[in-house]
């Protein structure tokens, strides 16, 4: 009877357990990495219909973010500018450049330019730009160094844990209001502990961690 189950079968339970743990571990690791925004969104760099470079406009030329995204301080939504805004300069500068044909056409006909959306929160999240940029949260925290990007790339995960990181400890990320649109601003050494904490106290900052803050 001893031949029915060969000797190696004695190790089978251990092998199953170890193997199961290995597979389970890989699956868990895979899911936590691949099925989260960290993988699924970060790095997303779609090709835009017009090869607009933030690096040229914001960094080299020093345009303020709000020149184009003028709704950001007032609305939940930070608008993509109308073609007419581009034409304020481009009716003088590079006014016959073929790369801007779509912009000129849009400004003339009103037909919108189909920009590809990069940053998007889910529909059940009610993120509000105005309240962040008016209370010391810079663009750079969520969008990364856009002023250095030729093509805009999704640089942060924008998942719920990403939001909560800051909502739980606002002092670490808050900055003076006049530096919000200065994407190159570096907090001085130890700012979070002294300056940041003071801003949080002085401005009565309670970002809130309840569901109702973002979900309605």
């Amino acid at each position: 009877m001893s031949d029915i189950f060969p000797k190696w079968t004695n190790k089978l339970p251990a092998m199953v357990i170890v193997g199961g743990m290995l597979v389970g571990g890989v699956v868990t690791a895979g899911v936590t990495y691949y099925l989260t925004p960290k993988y699924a969104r970060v790095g997303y760099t779609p090709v835009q219909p017009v090869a607009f470079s933030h690096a040229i406009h914001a960094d080299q030329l020093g345009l303020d973010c709000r020149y184009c995204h003028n709704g950001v301080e007032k609305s939940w939504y930070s608008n993509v500018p109308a073609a007419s805004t581009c034409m304020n300069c481009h009716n003088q500068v590079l006014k016959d450049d073929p790369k801007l044909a779509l912009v000129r056409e849009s400004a003339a006909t009103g037909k919108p330019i189909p920009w590809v959306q990069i940053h998007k929160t889910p529909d059940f999240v009610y993120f509000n730009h105005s309240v962040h940029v008016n209370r010391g949260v810079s663009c750079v925290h969520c969008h990364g160094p856009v002023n250095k990007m030729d093509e805009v790339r999704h640089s942060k995960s924008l998942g719920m844990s990403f939001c909560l990181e800051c909502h739980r400890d606002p002092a670490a990320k808050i900055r003076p209001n006049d530096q919000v649109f200065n994407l190159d601003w570096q907090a001085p050494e130890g700012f979070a502990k002294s300056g940041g904490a003071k801003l949080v106290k002085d401005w009565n900052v309670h970002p809130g961690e309840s569901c109702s803050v973002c979900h309605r």
Partner: protein
Amino acid sequence: MKFIPPVCPEPETGPQYFRSPEAMANSAQLQEWAEREFPAGASELTVAESRRDFMKLMSASFMLAGFGLTGCRRPTEHIYPFGKQPEGYIHGIAQHFATAMPTRTGAIPLLAKSSDGRPTKVEPNPLHPDQAGTDQFAQASVLGLYDPDRAQHFKKDGKIAKRVEALDALALISKSAAANGGRGLAIIAESNSSPTRARLQAAISAKFPNSVWANYDAVDSTIHTQAASLVSGKQVTHYFKFAAAKRILSLDCDFLGSEDEMYRYTRDFAKGRKISKPDSAQGFELISRLYTVESLMTLTGFSADHRVRVAPSQVAAVAAQLAAEVLKQGSSSASLNTVALAAGAKVDAKWISECAKDLVAHKGAALVVAGRGQPLAVHVLAHAMNEVLGAFGKTIELHDAPKSAANLAAAVGAETVVVLGANPAYTASETWNQIAKTAKTVVHLGSHEDETGKGASWHLPAAHYLESWGDARTSDGTVVAIQPLIAPLFAGLTESEVLGHLLGNPTANSYALTRETFPSLTGGALDEEKWKKFLHDGLLEGSKANAVSGSFNWTAVSTAISLATAAPAPSKDKLEVVFHRDASVDDGRYSNNGWLQELPDPITKLVWDNAVLISRETATQLGLKNGDVIAISANGRTVEGGIWIQPGMADFTLGLALGYGRKWGRIASFEDKSVGFNAYPLRTGTAGFITGASAKTTGRTHPFICTQDHWTLHGRPVVREANVDQFLKQPDFAKHMDLDGHTEFLAKNPDGSIKNIYEHPYKANPELASKSHQWGMVVDLNACTGCSACVIACQSENNIPIVGKDQVSKGREMHWMRIDRYYAADPKKKPQGGTVDAFLSNATGSQGNPNTVNLVERDELQATKKWIDDPQVVTQPMMCQHCESAPCESVCPVNATAHDDEGLNVMAYNRCVGTRYCANNCAWKVRRFNFFDFNKRPIGGGKMADTFFKLDIGLYKGPAGVRPGDEVDIISMARNPDVTVRMRGVMEKCTFCQQRIEGAKISQKVKAGASNDVVVKEGAIQTACQQACPAGAITFGNILDPNSAVSKLKQQDRNYSVLGFLDNKPRTTYLARIRNLNPLMPDAKIWTVEEYRSISDPHFMAEPAAEGAKKGVKH
């Protein structure tokens, strides 16, 4: 084991509260409702499906899942910015425009919200001197704008035609009318207060002197103007000021419900009923007192202190008696011969004399109003009393009124008929048929291609008021602006544009026409600045009408009375039928509006239906049961409808709501079955009521769906009330009713505090609570009339779907707030007389009595419980109470419902897995579950989709059920972008309008910038229900601020919590209702606080006998 809640039997003695007569009968079905949060079938799929169907569905689902998985990334989405930036527009910020919704007699001044170019919500205009809320129709008008069944095309003889062709046709009519002075041209329009319309109307009659202008309203209010003009000798109309009246007598006048201007009357009346402090010195003068004489149970009857029910024809007799008594006691020099008219009134003489005495004692602060449906005699009698009571100038003002136009019959014989908005083919088919017979051309301007539109030679789509330019006058005479928030979706025309074209102006547009009128309103030339301010404010300041004084014409009153004859009392064979304006569909104009159809009727709480309202006594005598379909015949015409026994109805009187039984529209004729029945064929002209009708049973029954018994509170005391004198003796009586006054019976902690089984969110961790805001709400039951405007406002604000009659019948309605209606009556009132004796004699075996033949199988309640016939009524808005120690939170397995730091009980929809434990554990029954994707799927079901799978497309069919694209697209435009549209499988409930709270907090923080001024200011947040409430019964705010309105109200003695003994600390509290019964009146059922308490206190109750109830008997 299933927990069977304790039955709280009604006390043997004292008054009783009951939610409905059905609840009194304690039927098996209601037991079921009471025991289960969701009734049988609500949680299960009941539609029979074969295995084959199931396989089809599953394979479809898997296929769809396969498609979904092919792309792990989100699909590419695009942002489409403007080509040219519009000035002053910032995407994402709602804009508000002042406008107004025109009504028959005036307009409702509004502030309309535009979200990204779509009107999504209307609010009352805070600049208007009325300072009132809105009614339910105004709130639902937003959905009306996006009705996919709206007329979308210009049509000639039913075929789609070009817009220019239609305009050419109008030009042709204009040309031929100009040639012969308008001979053969008739214009039929609805009443309207627009100065521009009046100007164009005058221009028409000047240019076409031979034309006929007929005003036609299916629900006609012109009697008010007629009566006021008659008694004053001038062309005037009434302007009631209920706030100034301490004593009010209503003669079949439902001024809180179906009368026009109800929204303003409600605010005005509530002002006189609100109590700021228990001022003993004032006694019965503390609040106003309302006497009503009425035939139907109405919202006015709900609020009445003394109510007597008489058949509509008998109101004149009661009015005559009252007038005689008022004249006598008021020692008026005038005399009226009211004897003939007064004969036969069966009202207690003491009722008449004491009522008159009370009115006379309040000269200058009394008001008598007569109802729209009553004849002229009743109106002049009311005004005669007003004259004696010194009401003119004090509680009633007279304002100039335009001359009355011809009526519908004047249009008979015209060759060319232009109908502006009205729908006479449906509402007055007999007269219309005569008109249509001789008319060669019929032009119909209508919002829908309705009965009149279908038969018209030309049908022109009408622009909604949110798409039009125009003007109107509110009832106080103030000129208000109507301005569009969106270009006409279907290229519709306004009334003024059609009139402009008829006047020969080929480029008539409503903007120019309204602007042309403006100088005549301001005087002088057009002032651009004034015009801009007019559009900004939505009203023309200082345009309020001046009160007109006239000498009272007693001779005219006498003549009018002598022309009236006393009507014989109705009987079993000579019934009277009242035609009333429906609280959901008005005269039928809103019958395709799903929000209104699903709004439980404020009186009956029926949805998706109208009923033949009938009193218990009448039904019993006719041998009818609730739901029996009867055929009502009068003057050779017959209408069939199901009966609904309504407490408080006058005997031998039937109440028929107008506006149902349509043959078109996906809501009005849901799944090709008319909703309700059409009552118009029975009516003669625009009469308010008819007499001499007979009824016989058809042997069929009609299933009614009444929501009052859904979400029952097991008979526990939730409404608290007292009479003024009781209240003044013990102002904090409400705090001591129910178990609140008996904490000795509650479980205690070792330290003596009440033991609460539910966790308090902040007690252990006070740092979790916000120091800036804690939200709370107070509802004043003394102000609430039960009109239900708040329910629609909530639906509009919070993207609440409708579910259809079938789903409501399963208890799946989604309304976040409901208006509970409680009847209170005294069983000590001995049942005797009429059918009661007949029943009892039958029960003892004396067969052969003809009255008893039909009674054998009727239940005892219907025959004997006479005491339920004259109930007192309380209405109570009920929504999430936002308990601090919330029972729902502790049972949620996934933490989807939790407390936030500002005291809100919040729902995270994307966490909810749909266990529904929370709803089961909620003692207030305010949570609603999305059983289906009501937003995406077609409600109802059963229609075959012409797709590969050939499946039904109803709610039950999962992903295979798809709503027609046009419907989804257009109805989605009505959605509030600030609120999540919930999907299937999640729980939802009132959020205290969280989006408004967060919005206010964010704008305060944006304003604060680099400062600490982040606390939201008082008044910055109004919840949707609060804002719409015409009575101002709801107050919301920050309870951390001791000066906020809500904190002050919570300090009042009357403040109490519903089910407060559970110690869940609800954030929504109620102010107890105070009645003002006159102790001298014969029907004054002044109950003591102890008696009211006996209704509520479990200690007054006998041990429940029911087997299952034993477990829960000790609270």
